[in-house]
């Protein structure tokens, strides 16, 4: 049945992924520029700073590593901080793993390299659209991921070249948060999801004093458990309702 309804091609899925990624780029562009500017002021050689965009390819980790680099933090601290900040990708990996299972090892390696926040959100939403059956959805993932990758290489490069010519204090770094708001708010439809977001956000603020942005991990755990708790409460309610109907 899936085969019959499947009118997509690798090409159509790829371009759908590119298209889904484009609006997200508007938040990534200023953030990438700012990263480039700050990387040069942190004292990193331009090419070394730019190499993090392809070797690490994780905006928030690259960003948060800058003050550690200029403070002369030991390598162990930098690697540990990167691990903690990017640990959320473990959960992205697990969410997409069932869909990636039929793919070859080469595909898995490539798609894992491209698995950022900004590629994950449209991709997981696309996989969950059950009204659109397709056996080519990994091409959507590739399209979204490659678009973000290419854009990230270009804008961080420009940021490094432009360097100190951009005025600071414009609050341009807030564009990253606004991008996340634009990606996640429209997906909050049920109480468990809203509860997960709000409880995690409040927790992240409450324990923001923890070192190495450990507050992110604590907040994630609180958010997940709040979501599961609210889910079990609402499910009990809906089971009660169906029983009434049967009576």
């Amino acid at each position, binding site marked *: 049945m899936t085969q019959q309804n499947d009118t997509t091609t690798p090409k159509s899925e790829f371009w759908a992924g590119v298209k889904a990624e484009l609006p997200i780029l508007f938040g990534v562009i200023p953030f990438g520029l700012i990263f480039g500017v700050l990387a040069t002021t942190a004292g990193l050689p331009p090419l070394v700073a730019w190499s993090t965009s392809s070797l690490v390819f994780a905006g928030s980790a690259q960003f948060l590593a800058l003050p550690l680099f200029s403070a002369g933090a030991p390598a162990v601290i930098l690697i540990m901080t990167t691990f903690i900040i990017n640990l959320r990708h473990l959960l992205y990996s697990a969410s997409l793993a069932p869909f990636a299972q039929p793919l070859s090892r080469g595909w898995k390696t490539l798609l894992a390299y491209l698995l950022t926040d900004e590629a994950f959100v449209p991709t997981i939403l696309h996989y969950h659209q059950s009204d659109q059956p397709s056996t080519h959805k990994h091409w959507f993932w590739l399209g979204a991921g490659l678009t973000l990758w290419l854009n990230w290489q270009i804008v961080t490069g420009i940021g490094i070249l432009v360097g100190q010519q951009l005025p600071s204090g414009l*609050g341009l770094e807030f564009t990253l948060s606004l991008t996340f708001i634009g990606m996640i708010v429209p997906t909050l439809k049920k109480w468990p999801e809203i509860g997960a977001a709000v409880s995690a956000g409040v927790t992240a603020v409450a324990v923001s004093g923890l070192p190495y942005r450990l507050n992110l991990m604590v907040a994630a755990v609180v958010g997940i458990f709040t979501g599961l708790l609210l889910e079990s409460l609402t499910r009990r309610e809906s089971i009660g309702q169906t029983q009434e109907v049967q009576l």
Partner: protein
Amino acid sequence: MMTPLQLMLTILAMGLVTFLIRLSFIALSDRIALRPLVRRGLTYVPPAVLAAIVFPDMLLSEGVLNLSWQNPFLLAGLGGILAAWWSKNVLVTMVVGMLILWGIQWITA
């Protein structure tokens, strides 16, 4: 500062750590089966983690809780949330949020 070699090795290690995290479940999914509870829990990861990045940006000024109406990031974030909810569009969210932020910065400057 580190030597250029130390610097590049550190960056390579940071990249390897990031890549292995992203690859983990994707590479091992045929050997590890996720329990239904774990899978349901995972659906709450994106809202939880992204909110955990956004809330401190909106509510903290220099690491201190700032709930005042003069906190431009709080107002810009709230405007962005309303815009995102109403428009379901990242670009609209961005424009509304940044205009509010710059507007308040301009008024209070």
